[in-house]
């Protein structure tokens, strides 16, 4: 994509009529049915809803991992839905951080090297050690994934995601494989990233309680956004009932 983000726009994403259909004919599954949405810059947004309600599909499309069947997505005024594969790769590389349920770390690289994997190619990365310190892992930088607990691996994944100083951070069930204590710690890291780096953070989750820490909560059902709730007061991750 071209490197001239529109500075006037305060929205990170502007989405109109976004539709995603899997399959054809009678077997067609409508994962998204014409979603219209604006996500302001710098917010922490939680996407809630049952399985198959379309929240992950939305995340994948605006994260540049999947293509829409119809509709447009604008990222800082740039139409993502019009980009080529190579341009989408560039977009992910420069602007997007991802955190997944199963961490997806490279087993052959140490914690620091996993972070360096990203900082080597990013345009404006932070120091890998600083990123690991941000998630509280400054003492374990030389460990391989196999030597880390699940929570630690997820924190490395977050460090990897934030080390490029992403504009947006996408998290798909980041606490799904973790216990409550570790889960809280991970959420706290996400909140820190949101506040200290000013990154827009989108979290897809089943855990409704997570919504209490968000600026904005999107409730999904049957491929559409049923309700958007803007929190006047937010809880800190430590206060969340798990």
């Amino acid at each position, binding site marked *: 994509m071209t490197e001239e983000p529109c500075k006037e726009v305060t929205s990170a994403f502007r989405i109109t009529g976004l539709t995603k259909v899997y399959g054809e004919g009678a077997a067609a599954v409508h994962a998204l049915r014409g979603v219209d949405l604006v996500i302001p810059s710098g917010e922490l947004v939680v996407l809630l809803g049952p399985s198959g309600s379309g929240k992950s599909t939305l995340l994948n499309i605006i994260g540049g991992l999947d293509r829409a069947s119809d509709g447009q997505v604008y990222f800082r005024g740039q139409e993502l839905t019009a980009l080529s594969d*190579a341009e989408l790769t560039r977009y992910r590389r420069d602007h997007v951080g991802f955190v997944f349920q199963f961490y997806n770390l490279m087993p052959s690289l140490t914690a620091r090297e996993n972070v360096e994997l990203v900082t080597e190619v990013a345009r404006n990365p932070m120091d890998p050690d600083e990123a690991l310190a941000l998630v509280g892992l400054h003492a374990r930088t030389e460990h391989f994934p*196999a030597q880390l607990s699940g929570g630690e691996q997820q924190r490395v994944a977050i460090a990897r995601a934030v080390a490029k100083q992403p504009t947006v951070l996408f998290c798909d069930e980041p606490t799904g494989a973790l216990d409550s204590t570790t889960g809280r710690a991970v959420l706290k890291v996400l909140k820190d990233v949101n506040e200290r780096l000013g990154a827009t953070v989108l979290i897809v989750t089943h855990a409704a309680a997570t919504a209490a820490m968000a600026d904005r909560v999107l409730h999904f059902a049957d491929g559409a956004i049923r309700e958007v709730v803007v929190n006047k007061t937010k809880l800190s991750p430590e206060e969340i009932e798990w």
Partner: protein
Amino acid sequence: MSPLDRKLLRDLWRIKGQAVAIAAVIGVGVLMLVMMTGIVTSLDETRRAYYERYRLADIFASVTRAPDRLISDLSSIPGVSVAEGRVTGSALIDLPGLDLPLRAAAVSLPDFGEPRLNDIYLVAGRRLDSDRSSEILLLEGFAKAHGLQPGDALSATMNGARRTFRIVGLAQSPEFLYTTAPGELAPDDSRFGVIWMSRTALAAAYDMDGAFNQALLSVGRGSERTAVFAAVDRMLDHHGGLGAYGLEDHESNRFVSEEISGLRAMSSGVPPIFLGVAAFLLYIVVSRMVQTEREQIGLMKAFGYTNVEVGAHYFKLVLAIAAGGALAGCLAGIAAGRALIEVYLEFFKFPFLVFQLDPGAFVVGFSVSVLTASTGGLIVLRGVFALSPATAMNAPAPPDYSRTGRIGQSLNRHLDQPSRMVLRRLTRQPGRMAGAMLGIAAGMALSVGMISILAGFDRTLALTFTVIDRSDVTVTFTEAMSEKAILELQRMPGVIEVEPVRIVPAVLRNGLKTYRGAISGLVTEPRLNRAVDKDIMTIPTRREGVILATALADILGIASGEMLTIEVREGRQPVLDIPVIGIAQSLLGSPVYMELGALNRALREPNRVSGAYLRVDSIHSQSVYRTLKDMPTVAGVSLKADARNAFQKLMDTGAGAMRYIMAAIAAIITFGVVYNAARIAYAERARDLASLRVIGFSKGEVAFVLLGELAIVTLVALPVGALLGYYLSFGIAAGFSSDLYQIPAVFTPRSYGAAALAVVAAAVTSGWLVKRDIDRTDLISALKTRE
């Protein structure tokens, strides 16, 4: 159908590409075994049946002239079941339009009824009418080569008299499956004919009324042949007997036997190498495949399936692929064998075919495939059985790379993260990588081996026809002539150089080892046809000894400096004890060289020559040939170009033709090995690669992580494969070599380069195929699936 079996079918469908690639590799290994053994068994059986049906004699004995009554004496020798006398002679066939006369053998058939031994198979026309002395039957191969048919006239010179005959039929005979022009080694249908005539007519032509000059004998099973030979030789001695010899020394049969045993040596030597490589690959592939199923195995165990049930499930998967490949290989082997045997039938000129398969080949092919596949599966499953079901319930544990982390710290500083990933994968499981590397190296070795064999065939021809033999024409006289004949040749315009030669048949003995061949008497410093040493330098012939070809020295188990017994089968038939003074490099035939004067002295026939090598000015070659044709003393003229073509044809249609098929199979296996290595590496890493794509790595960068590994494994495999191939070549070369020709393993930078290129091409193609899959990866599903 149980759910596990349904899973089995779906798993097979899911991995169909890989399954087919594995099955194909094992399949071609089995194919080769089944095909080769099938061909050999069929040829052997067919030959046996052919000989039996046409009553080919077991013993042949030539004499100058023996009275017919001797036949009853011969048949009364204990052990002899049938004895028959016949008249044979040499003839020259003059065909219009040909510059050179063609040599032929004239053979008598009884005036009435069929011969009791050495019957003929009438292909076209009718048998001889004994009342008409001008009727002949002609050897089918020769007739075909010259477009002659029953009803045509043929002009031939017999015993100095030129006559015109009428061809009444075309025949084949197990006795003349192969015909070789005089002075040559390779058979050539077009340049040697066989004429059958009635006994009375032929006896008249050769002054053999009431006499025979060749006795044929068949012996009962289990009879003492040495005693029979001795008795026959004793009886025929007074009549100019040239020594009885068995079927095994008969020229045509020796040739057929050599070709068949060449194929047999190849079928027992080469396919196991191929099958071994295929089996090794299968083992590697299966063990890695089961490894990637680790998670599912844990799950099944968590559901309550026992180790045995889970084991049986994977065992079936492995078995399905291995047995499928072996079965396909068997069927394809039968089909290929059937197709090829037709080619060989034509080559061997068998009039019918007894197609027979070797059940042993199926058993061996099947058990090798299934056993290696099972071993591969079992070794991995053993580890899997130890796995606790709980492992499947947790998030997948990343493979532990901590022990590799400290390797090459200094190197690390210079590498980016993707390169480190490649390097650590290689060092983390050195066994697995070594396996993949060895697999590719084995494929490379096969290619190197086959390419060096292909080069070996060319070397054999080049060495023989440009280095050893530098003449243009070989002239064979009707009998040993005085040296004046050489002067006559020298005087011919267009003849640049003439070198005399005397070739006499002889039996060579070293202890119990004997060989029936011929001695070439050469001048002291031969220039046109010579013995050469390893460095291609002429070995001068010396009065005091003989020079043997390497192949013959091996057959006789004799070395330079040892004494050789030579029983000359010509003239006064002297027996010589003579030292071996040199071993000559010869890749064609098994020549023995002796100094011409010494040979003549031994025969007490001074200044005799039986032929000559000529160098001819190419401008005058036509007139030289015409003059030679008109010389009554010339029995045969052979052009080197014809001889070379005949050999090339022999190598391309006989046992040697197998080299092309083997080279193709080697290429298939090489590709299969490399492709499988790439596929498995991809299967193991799909998730990591998708993760890299998600965090912003381009398709090319991601491909680097996977293909970098393949590239390094391939690059390491190249020198290892070259080394393995070097040793393998000798084994394959031995399989291809026979009494008729030796194939050296030839190593040139070109053969290594070509093999390396083949492997690299296979790697690039495989890499490209796998990269296509990487490019198509569905990023989301790759992230959701657990390992």
